[in-house]
């Protein structure tokens, strides 16, 4: 869907993005991670030409982005940033309607789309639509920022630390919303983040930037178990790695026949949650239940511990 070919950005003698090539599949979520100043934002902004590359090119659905005027190109690419950038002089509904209006949609269609998106993000259109941005909480503003970016059915959604300023609970909710909405709309997402949990839980693939270069691009499991560089290994934290690994899969395929007592664990719960539940209640095994509450078997502490080891794969 997005092909990044030998993309380089230089400011004077500073090579900020250095010969990056990357292929992003349609409908995938790619997280771009790396230290501060490693060139993540610059890479992202070269995709919608907010920054013009020094050399290299970007293709979206096979078409060179330079074939379209920048402002027209951007109408087909969603863009959501930290600090949302909502227009303070426009209502929430008008903010969300920005790109559809630029594209000349008729009023009824814009209105329907705005209502649809606000509802999708849990904001009652009749209540929040007529409000101004300053009348919303930070979390709500952030959601409106993402809704605005999605309004015109973009093929691609670029996000630069969109949830960075949110508290952990609101952030988790926003991430879950994004995942659900992305699955529903099938949009391709490139997400810059400093939050490794966000990267591993949300993304299909993780791209690691180090001093302007792309040092690894792989699935979360791969970057966790086989980091390409020392930096990539450090980034996920040696003390956190096994737990992150566990959080990537559900307990469903660790379930085995047997009997155990106590509070059951849902089959679609992730393994990290299951481990935590067992450790906390001091049990060696717990019953596993399906979506309808039916007993599927048990999951044992031993199997979970085994699954946390990188060697196991």
């Amino acid at each position, binding site marked *: 869907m997005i092909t990044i070919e030998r993309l380089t950005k230089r400011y004077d003698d500073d090579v900020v993005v250095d010969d990056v090539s990357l292929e992003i599949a349609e409908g995938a979520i790619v997280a771009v991670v790396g230290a501060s100043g490693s060139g993540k934002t610059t890479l992202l902004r070269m995709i*919608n030409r*907010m920054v013009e590359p020094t050399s290299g090119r970007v293709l979206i659905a096979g078409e060179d982005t330079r074939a379209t005027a920048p402002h027209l190109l951007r*109408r087909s690419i969603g863009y959501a940033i930290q*600090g949302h*950038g909502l*227009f*303070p002089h426009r209502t929430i509904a008008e903010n969300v309607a920005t790109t559809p209006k630029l594209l000349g949609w008729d009023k009824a269609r814009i209105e329907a789309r705005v209502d649809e998106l606000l509802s999708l993000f849990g904001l009652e259109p009749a209540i929040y639509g007529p409000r101004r941005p300053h009348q919303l909480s930070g979390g709500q503003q952030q959601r409106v920022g993402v809704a605005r970016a999605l309004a015109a059915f973009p093929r691609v959604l670029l996000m630069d630390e969109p949830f960075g300023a949110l508290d952990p609970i609101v952030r988790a909710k926003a991430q879950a919303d994004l995942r659900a909405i992305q699955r529903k709309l099938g949009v391709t997402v490139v997400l810059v983040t400093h939050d490794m949990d966000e990267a591993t839980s949300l993304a299909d693939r993780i791209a690691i930037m180090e001093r302007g270069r792309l040092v690894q691009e792989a699935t979360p499991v791969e970057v966790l178990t086989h980091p390409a560089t020392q930096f990539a290994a450090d980034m996920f934290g040696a003390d956190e790695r096994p737990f992150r690994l566990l959080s990537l899969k559900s307990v469903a395929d660790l379930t085995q026949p047997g009997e155990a007592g106590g509070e059951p664990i849902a089959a679609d719960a992730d393994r990290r949650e299951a481990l935590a539940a067992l450790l906390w209640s001091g049990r060696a095994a717990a019953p596993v239940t399906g979506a309808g509450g039916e007993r599927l078997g048990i999951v044992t502490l031993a199997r979970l511990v085994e699954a946390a080891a990188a060697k196991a794969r």
Partner: protein
Amino acid sequence: MKAAAWTLRLLTLALLAVYLIRPETFAAALAPLAPAGAPAVYTQSSVLELAAIHVAIAAVATVLATAAALALAVFATRPAGSAFLPLFRSVANAGQTFPPVAVLAIAVPSVGFGEAPTLIALTLYGVLPVFENALSGIEGVSPAVLDAARGAGLSPRQELLEVELPLALPAILSGVRLSAVIALSTATIGSTVAARTLGEVVIAGLATNNLAYIVQGAAAIAALTVLISDALGALERWAARRAGRG
């Protein structure tokens, strides 16, 4: 508090209106200030007409100054014009350091006596406040908002007209108000080069040592200026609310 302010406004407006339409009404009140035997109320020309010209000159000067200042500020904040910003700043500042009388004196030989030199002086004076305010208004738009505007697909022109200028409007209006106040008060001295403004009443008073003339002229100019500044202030607050601050 609000009621008191409104009472004061309406009272000022009423007194001004009465003076401009029937100045004789104040003859008895002003008589103690006039020299013995001299008239207490200025009647050589219609004060209503003088006030109209006074306001018209100030309004035209403010509009011209605003247009010029906005053009300069917009140009100086575009990528192509940013190099000119320091130049515009110093020129506008230099303009402000000339005393208005000097501008009048320089303008008279080239455009003659009357309203024209006054208009030139007032326009030059009005540019700086609007320019500085427009600049800070445009530069004060949050970078995240501009980034989002660009990211959403606004063209540079749409970005200016739909985001930057609406958000800078309260600041711009505050500059316009400042310019208008300067123009209204400075139009007074236009009378020294034969512009027909309310300054004529004050100058007649100075020339004939008639304190009554000086007081009525000065009071009329002050009332006019306060009322207009007040109205522009209300406009400014309305714009600030619309820009989403409040």
